[in-house]
């Protein structure tokens, strides 16, 4: 059973605020990922990490940033939220690059 957690589950925030979406996993996975998903659409990879102090941008350009100081923790930060950032953000982890990914429940972000 995969144990990957995201907080908050829902967030409504005003334009210009700084926000951090939390993602933690207890499985010791090296690989972690952030996806953005708009309603009825596919998932787009925005950031990934293959280990501590390693982060890369994904296929979809994003104004967010990530950090990986600890294996189990992969937070995503938006310095100044805008309405265009309104979306669902899904975090995932994987034990190996060629393996399946385990997903958290997601954070639904609304920027007003």
């Amino acid at each position: 059973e995969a144990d990957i957690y995201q907080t908050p589950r829902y967030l409504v925030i005003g334009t210009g605020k700084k926000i951090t979406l939390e993602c933690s996993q207890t499985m010791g996975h090296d690989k972690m990922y952030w996806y953005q998903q708009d309603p009825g659409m596919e998932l787009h990879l925005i950031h990934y990490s293959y280990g501590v102090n390693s982060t890369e941008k994904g296929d979809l350009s994003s104004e967010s940033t990530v950090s990986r100081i600890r294996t189990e923790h992969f937070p995503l930060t938006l310095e100044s939220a805008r309405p265009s950032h309104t979306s669902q953000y899904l975090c995932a982890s994987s034990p190996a690059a060629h393996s399946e990914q385990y997903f958290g429940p997601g954070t639904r972000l609304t920027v007003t």
Partner: protein
Amino acid sequence: AQSVTQPDIHITVSEGASLELRCNYSYGATPYLFWYVQSPGQGLQLLLKYFSGDTLVQGIKGFEAEFKRSQSSFNLRKPSVHWSDAAEYFCAVGGVAGGTSYGKLTFGQGTILTVHP
């Protein structure tokens, strides 16, 4: 670049009927293939995966999928659908070692399944 196409945006079936969800991929070699299911407001749950070997793979909840290299397809099937199967289903392809997509998943647009009683 790898890509995934799920031709059916929305499928409606009656409870007890059989189900087939289509997935076509584009990739230069045999990729890793996955089917995930997403209930409203939730993350994705892995149904099954194909890495190599037997082209018919069994998953959880009574689902199976068949990899057909000649058709670049990985269709998901279930012989008898239950009302609890109503959800959105995503096909995904993962790149193999040595490629630029290694370690990443590319998802299709998803197919929403509605089950009528």
